[in-house]
């Protein structure tokens, strides 16, 4: 059997690993135009700081997998699911029995009237990060568009480089989807203490660009003026489905529609990771959640399904949003649903204000949590959110993050008995 995997992200790598683990005799060909073959995409902001750090980002593969795997460094022009062929950039067709599409996502395009295209930089691959690093050599006033996790991660890196940027956010606060209002203001204060300036609730109108000085001024609808010489965009991603759409696969909510075994509308064609949309039985529609652990899990499921070794307990579950990220050595974790008017909120803040733990309840069930400064029991909480555990009262050790339970039962038994 020959299996072709398109894409080298988390999902492609994990699909390849699980396929080769379950059926070592399969011929696996991985096609990508990205370089290097296996690296940590969420950590590419490190390349902006130090372009030589690429070797640290590369992910180690087991030796046996490296021997069996075939790598093709080519751009994919198109796929023909009826004949089972992939057309590569050099117009050579590559036939397959099973295809796993992990084409990932691409940054949402942003245009600001008056700013030259090459001065608006997005971040997705190692190549993008190296390009930003080369532009930043002569930059003095970088501006980051977007106050989400990507935008703040870029702002964090620039601050560590001694170049605190201005962050322009369209919503009235930062991390509006990830954190609650109080926790977000805490993170904002942390960034401001390091010299980052925030412009909140801003709608960009146009910009004046001086080509000789290589500087410009952003104009907003409220007639503010923000000086800049480089624009870094961190405004989220949209699935890359051009190949699948041209091939006639079903597209739902912007992503390739897949079943619980990650199979698309064509048999033996799987889609994994950021480019796939899975049906959520609670909301009744297809959802796409572009985060690394979800991509890795979907890749593992697709690999097992392609190998014919998928059992019911290991199928892909509806992904719960979660993210963990340290800003200036302060760990920040966000899990589950944390925004909404109907949620009941319980929070704990330490005396010196360095720790804030907020919990969200929906109809007596734990629906989400945000932890700042102290992430003790984060794993237990995520499991409780995933299982929609009903809690009458939040125990103190969970609320305050006390690691050892003097005289109590082990945490797992309290929550899930």
């Amino acid at each position: 059997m020959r299996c072709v995997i398109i894409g080298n992200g988390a999902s492609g790598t994990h699909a390849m690993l699980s396929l080769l683990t379950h059926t070592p005799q399969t011929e696996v060909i991985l096609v990508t135009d990205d370089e290097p073959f296996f690296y940590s995409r969420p950590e590419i902001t490190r390349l902006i700081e130090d372009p030589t750090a690429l070797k640290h980002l590369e992910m180690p593969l087991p030796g046996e997998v490296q021997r069996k795997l075939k790598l093709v460094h080519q751009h994919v022009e198109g796929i023909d699911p009826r004949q089972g062929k992939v057309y590569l950039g050099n117009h050579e067709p590559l036939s397959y029995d099973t295809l796993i599409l992990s084409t990932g996502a691409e940054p949402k395009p942003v245009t600001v009237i008056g700013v030259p295209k090459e001065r608006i930089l997005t971040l997705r691959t190692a190549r993008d990060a190296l390009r930003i690093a080369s532009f930043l050599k002569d930059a003095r006033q970088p501006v980051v568009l977007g106050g989400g996790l990507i935008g703040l991660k870029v702002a964090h890196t620039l601050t560590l480089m001694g170049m605190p940027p201005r962050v322009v956010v369209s919503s009235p606060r930062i991390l509006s989807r990830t954190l609650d209002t109080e926790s977000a203001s805490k993170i904002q204060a942390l960034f401001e203490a390091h010299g980052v300036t925030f412009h909140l609730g801003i709608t960009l109108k146009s910009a004046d660009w001086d080509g000789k000085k290589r500087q410009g001024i952003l104009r907003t609808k409220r007639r503010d003026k923000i000086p800049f010489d480089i624009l870094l965009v961190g405004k989220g991603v949209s699935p890359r489905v051009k190949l699948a759409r041209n091939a006639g696969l079903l597209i739902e909510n912007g992503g390739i529609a897949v079943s619980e075994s990650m199979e698309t509308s064509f048999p033996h064609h799987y889609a994994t990771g950021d480019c796939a949309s899975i049906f959520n039985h609670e909301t009744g529609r297809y959802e796409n959640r572009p985060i690394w652990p979800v991509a890795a899990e979907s890749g593992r499921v697709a690999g097992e399904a392609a190998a014919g070794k998928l059992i019911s307990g290991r199928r892909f579950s509806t992904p719960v949003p979660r993210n963990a990220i340290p800003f200036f050595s302060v760990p920040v974790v966000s899990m589950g649903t944390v925004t909404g008017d109907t949620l009941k909120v319980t929070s704990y803040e330490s005396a010196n204000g360095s720790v804030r733990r907020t919990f969200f309840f929906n109809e007596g069930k734990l629906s989400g949590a945000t932890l700042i400064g102290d992430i003790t029991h984060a794993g237990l909480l995520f499991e409780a959110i995933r299982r929609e555990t009903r809690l009458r009262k939040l125990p103190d050790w969970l609320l305050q993050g006390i690691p050892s339970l003097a005289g109590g039962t082990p945490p797992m038994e309290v929550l899930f008995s």
Partner: protein
Amino acid sequence: MREIFFIPDRCLPGCNACQMACVGEHLKNKGVLSPLAGLPFPKKVRSQPAENTIKTPRPHPVRCLHCDPPRCVEACLSGSLIKNPEDGRVGNNVEQCIGCFMCVVHCPFGAIIPLPSEQISIKCDGCLWSKAPACVRACPTGALIFVEPQTYNEKLKMKDRFRKRKIQPAKLLPARV
């Protein structure tokens, strides 16, 4: 796959030999005295006082259960957590770890400990390179044993049976492995 099991009624309170051995084993010089220099000790939870055997709760180490599929490995952004395909154990290469704490969020047992000051997270790796984990080797009373889960279950059943006959139960489990 053999696992570490804890027998609370054999544990000496305040002994801490298992924690010292764990820190010493994971240092480069394998020093015995270095753990005393204030390095972080492995995490413990306190177990519930069991009927008949122990009166007060005793602390015991939180250990990795080496799940299949391991969620921490799928969540790891840096590739420092790796599942060994041969024996199914999950190992942690701390030098590769970047301290993103995604694994901490994904471990349902709380077995991965974040160290934000060091920008790493650590977990029990079962001392993959040695015959038995350091904590088991260091335990003076045999409260920690390293056996197959099946063996442990069989011994527990035997223990229950003999307890009804009022025979000392601790002698039935292997003293040291």
